[in-house]
């Protein structure tokens, strides 16, 4: 298993962000994590990255505890943060040079290919880039070391539609075909439907559905009609929660 989460519970004061969440993700698939606002998706991702310590239960990534062994875990993960907090004072080429130092598997040729595909000027300061360009820069450094696990927290919120449709999907599929694993959270259910093999729906800190996408569709079939993921999401978490599904 690439990720193994067992009975994970997390509370923030009186709020239970995650309640006995268990999840197992084998290698080589694309996992879509969907849920309403405040459902616990980002909290789960932060546990996987070791940014939150498991209060009860356990989290293992590549069989390791990400809190106890951050170097071994993080050096094999590519991560695009929802917060898009790349240092504004760096130039794009400095960001690439700096990031390269941390990942032995960094591929210079691939990094340059991505930079050109994302139309990023190497001399441009990150702080002067648009939100979408910053998201592309973040995606570049998440991908260029060909990570074993790619974690994308709401990538769609920063990327423009063209990159989202033409590049992100292609990149994710390529990674999966190479036998690596992708975990991404998104509020765009049609996007999840397009690229994910496996969908996990999370609601009020609990996993309500976690299965291969085809199985979910099949189990929710109404006669000959296969419902969309949007309809399945509404059926499982209720219409109110589905009004503004978000990470």
């Amino acid at each position, binding site marked *: 298993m690439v990720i193994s989460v067992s009975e994970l519970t997390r509370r923030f004061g009186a709020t239970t962000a995650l309640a006995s969440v268990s999840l197992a993700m084998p290698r080589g698939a694309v996992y879509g994590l969907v849920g309403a606002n405040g459902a616990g998706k980002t909290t789960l991702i932060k546990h996987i*990255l*070791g*940014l*939150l*310590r498991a209060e009860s239960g356990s989290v293992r990534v590549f069989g390791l505890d990400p*809190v*106890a*062994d*951050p*170097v071994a*875990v*993080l*050096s094999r*993960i590519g*991560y695009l*943060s929802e*917060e898009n*907090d*790349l*240092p*504004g*004072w*760096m130039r794009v*080429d400095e960001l690439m*040079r*700096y990031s*390269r*130092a*941390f*990942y032995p598997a960094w591929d210079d040729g691939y990094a340059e290919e991505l930079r050109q595909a994302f139309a990023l000027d190497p001399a441009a300061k990150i702080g002067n880039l648009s939100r979408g360009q910053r998201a592309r820069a973040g995606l570049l450094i998440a991908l260029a070391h060909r990570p074993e696990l790619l974690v994308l927290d709401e990538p769609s919120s920063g990327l423009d539609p063209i990159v989202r449709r033409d590049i992100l999907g292609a990149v994710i599929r390529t990674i999966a075909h190479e036998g690596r694993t992708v975990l991404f959270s998104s509020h765009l259910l049609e996007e999840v439907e397009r690229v994910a093999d496996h969908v996990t729906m999370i609601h009020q800190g609990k996993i309500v559905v976690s299965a291969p996408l085809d199985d979910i569709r099949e189990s929710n079939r109404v006669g000959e009609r296969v419902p969309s993921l949007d309809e399945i999401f509404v059926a499982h978490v209720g219409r109110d929660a589905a009004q503004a599904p978000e990470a």
Partner: protein
Amino acid sequence: MRSPALAIAWEFRRRHRWGLIAVAGYLFVVATIRFLILEPGEPVLVDSVRFAAVVSVPLTTTFVYLLAVFSFGFAGDLGARHSMYPARMFTLPVTNAALVGWPMLYGTVAMAILWLAARLVAVWPSGIAIPVIWPALLAASLLAWTQALTWMPYGLPGIRLIVAVLCLAALDTVVLLAMHFKAGEPMMLGILAPQVPLAYLVARFAVARARRGDVPDWRGLSARSGDIADLLPRPRDHFSSPERAQVWFEWRRHGRSLPALVGLVLPFELALLWLAKDAPAFVFEILFLVLITPPFVAAFTAWTVSKPNPHMRDSYGVPPFFATRPLTSAQLIAAKLQMAMGSTLAAWLLVFVALPLALAWSGTWSVMMDRVQRMNGAIGASRAVVFVMLVLTGFIVTTWKQLVQSLHIGLTGREWLIKGSVLLTLTFLVLLGPIVEWFIDSPSVQRASWNALPLILAGLVALKMSAAAWIATRLNRSRLLGDRALFVGAACWCVAVLALYAVLVWFVSTPFVAHYLLALIAILAVPLVRLAAAPLALAWNRHR
């Protein structure tokens, strides 16, 4: 809530109700002592220590608290470039005049009430004339200027602190000089009355600027060396290790601030040497001023170094980009320590280059040499050299220490801990004056302290070593540092302590100071606990 004025007042009251209740409680207690316990009309004889404990320390603490309340100091970031005025209020449908005027008015009224209540109910020694209005006006002026200067957006992180301290100290100096020359109440009012309106105008300008997002960015100036470097061929070499890359990151983010700020201040200080040609004593005062500049500035820039995310306002947590670096927390701290060392050396290089040049060009070099020769004659050449080296090393180490000693607090990311430590430090500084005065005025206390000095030092050493042992155990158990790293660290610390001890023994060759005392001093002088706690603090913040 029917008006913005009431809404703003409600926010102050709601948010700080417990603090304001504590202030009212204090005034109630002193009023009870004054009117019920002490007999009315009786002369009140209180010594300076009791007066400090009952009146001056609580009043000063309350004053500082009100400064923080009405300048939104509890919610903002003193070290940031952005205005400390809460950005959420910029979108309210009110004028800049209202945004500035109401907090300033409430603050002025609070300061006036504090003074008038203290004047009325506090236990003042008999026989001294307590002024009526001007202290209230002074408190209001200091608050108004604090508001104006903290709400102003600045071009560089940390500048706010320096500007605020210098301006408030200047106003204080003017008032102290006026008191020294026994200026009457009308004169004091004449000095202080224009301050609040002036500060109001500055604050309006500051809030207007912050509201339209007009935050100057002088980081380009401080990074001028970076721009010059851009003209040169850019380094294309890869970093030899992740640790090197992280040191570069820290240097680019924080390392240049200290040398840049020292470089800004130094010319003004050294220019005074030209005025001091005929006053040798003044030369040494300027020299002292120059030497304390790097540690002084470092104390302010440390604010940004110890904050994980100085460029994001109101954020104490570790940003994901930093937290997901595949390095251990100890390696991230090591990069900060190395950056601080580089920054310190760069700042002192500036001083060591500029100072002799300024002494030579201003014609004050001979004054320096004369004093050096006199020292040679008094204690011998070798001791004089060691003394100068010790002093300079002390200043350099102090500068570095200033930069890194608050890492263990700042990197925890816990707002209550950070602000609590600031409050404790301020309280300590407020108490320090009366304690020193009490110590100086009490020969019996001095004798007892001198006799108990070995015990006090031994107690402090025991405390330090116990804390170090606990931290080392935690570091080891949480796998932040391995056995080898802990052993090497401990060995380096022991070598530093032994070296300092050897120098002290050689330098202080007097039978009046026992060698074990020097050993205790050496153990206490070499930093250990706070530095060792920094990785724990970062890990606590990084893995919440």
